[in-house]
Structure formats: structure tokens, C-alpha cells
């Protein structure tokens, strides 16, 4: 009986780790996507002579669509694991809806504050992540540390760009990528320690 109990606990630990890995993979997606978008737009633009801004818009749209596909898969898997563990929260649709609605609100506010494309990306993503952390805090009772940290890092490191201290698109890309990479690292490290 003791062995069975231990086996069940081990199963639960493994499933919890998988759940957190699915969450971390979404951060890793963006940590990889931002430099890839930057480099691809530079390379394609120099080869094909297409406007770099147009390429950035097109590639960003593709990245967002792929992310939605990726997130839907992760969300489904996390829900399945929670259901199998008997920890179905239920009624999370309204939280998901609020999380989606946060973005247009943040986009409109940031658009009013700046017209610079890179600063717009930094502030939108930074403020968006902070808003998502706030939504998680209010509706799910905490555990929004990673999102808040990503948001704060991005906003803090947007200051040199904002003040025009020689920081360009490569710097903005590095900030975005580092913020998400750190978020993924902390999520996985925490999951492995638990």
C-alpha cells in the first residue's frame, strides 16, 4: 500500500512538472520568436529588397498566429492534466476573456503615448504582462510573479531606449527576449524545486 501511495505521489509530481513546462514553453516561444523576427526581417529585406517595416508587420502577424495555435494546445493539455488530477477549477472562461481584452486596452493607451515602433513594442508587452499579472492576482489569487517580473524587466530596460541613449531595434529585441527567457527559466526552476 505504501508503494502505491509513493507511486501516486510520483505521478502527481510528474504531472505538475509537465503542467509547468507547458506554461514555460509559452515564454520560451517569445524568447526565441523576438530575435528570429528581427533577424529574419533584416535578412529577407536585404535579399528581396522588401521594406523592413512591412516585413516586421507580416512576420509579427505570423508569430502571433502561431502563438495562438501553440497556446491553445498548451491550454488544452494543462486543463487535461488538472482534470485528471481532480483539480478542475472550472469557470475560467471569464479570466481568459479578460486576459484577451487586456491587450487591446494596453495597445490603445500605449499608442497614445508613443509613435516609435520599438518603444511601442516594449511598452505594450511590458504593460501587457503587468496587466496579466494583475488579472491573475485578482482572479486566481496570486502566483503571478513571473508575469510581473517579465513586465517590470521590459519596462525598466525600455528607459535607455526612451531616453535615446543609443539603443536601437537590436537592443529592444534583446530586452524582450531576455525578459521572456528569464520568465521561462524561473518557471522551470521553481517547478523542478517543488
Amino acid at each position, binding site marked *: 500500500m505504501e508503494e502505491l*501511495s509513493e507511486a*501516486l*505521489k510520483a505521478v502527481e509530481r510528474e504531472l505538475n512538472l*509537465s503542467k509547468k513546462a507547458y506554461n514555460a514553453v509559452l515564454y520560451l516561444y517569445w524568447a526565441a520568436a523576438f530575435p528570429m523576427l528581427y533577424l529574419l526581417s533584416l535578412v529577407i529585406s536585404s535579399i528581396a529588397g522588401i521594406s523592413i517595416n512591412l516585413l516586421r508587420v507580416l512576420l509579427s502577424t505570423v508569430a502571433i498566429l502561431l502563438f495562438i495555435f501553440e497556446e491553445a*494546445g498548451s491550454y488544452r493539455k494543462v486543463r*487535461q*492534466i488538472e*482534470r*485528471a488530477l*481532480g483539480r478542475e477549477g472550472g469557470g475560467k472562461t471569464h479570466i481568459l476573456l479578460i486576459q484577451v481584452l487586456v491587450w487591446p486596452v494596453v495597445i490603445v493607451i500605449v499608442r497614445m503615448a508613443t509613435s516609435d515602433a520599438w518603444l511601442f513594442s516594449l511598452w505594450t508587452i511590458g504593460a501587457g504582462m503587468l496587466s496579466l499579472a494583475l488579472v491573475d492576482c485578482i482572479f486566481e489569487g496570486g502566483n503571478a510573479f513571473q508575469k510581473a517580473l517579465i513586465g517590470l524587466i521590459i519596462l525598466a530596460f525600455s528607459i535607455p531606449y526612451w531616453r535615446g541613449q543609443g539603443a536601437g531595434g537590436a537592443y529592444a529585441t534583446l530586452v524582450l527576449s531576455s525578459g521572456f527567457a528569464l520568465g521561462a527559466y524561473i518557471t522551470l526552476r521553481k517547478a523542478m524545486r517543488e
Partner: protein
Amino acid sequence: MLDEVAKLSKSPLGNPTRLAIALYLLPKERTTFTDLRKVLKLTPGNLEFHLRALEEAGIIRTYYGFGRRPRKFIEITEDGVRELREALRILREVVGDD
């Protein structure tokens, strides 16, 4: 509790190998026949037998995908997740962890 244990033993996940297959599949989007065979150390015939039983019970779904050569992929279904939840609940109750 004995009723529940009897129910579990009669369910498709009452067999330890089938329970292991479902548990292995749960956190994965999908897996291959070869991967599952290696992890569970089963012969192809034995694994095929268990997979057929699980598929007939609606616990898993198998399909062929294309890579360098056609490969058999296996994934857990929503019904499978429900059955697994029930099996885990009964097992937790048996060991008194619930």
C-alpha cells in the same frame, strides 16, 4: 470502497499496463508507437494488443502521420482523461490519500 475497486478492475484502465500507457500519454500531445514500446519495455504484439483495447474503449486515439516514413501516433482522448481521473481517484481513496 470494494465496489469502487471492483469497478476499476473491470474498467479499461484496471490493467496496470493500460493505466501506465494512459499516464504516459496524459502530459504529452502525442507519442509514437516505437517510443511507447521502448518506455514500457513491451513487445510490439503486446503493445498493439493493449492499444487496441484502449482504442476500442475510447481512451486513446491512434493515427498515422508522415515523416521520413509513416509512423503511428497515439494520443489520449477527453474520455480517456475522464477515465484516468476516475482511476486515480479510486487509487487515492484506496491508499487513503484522498
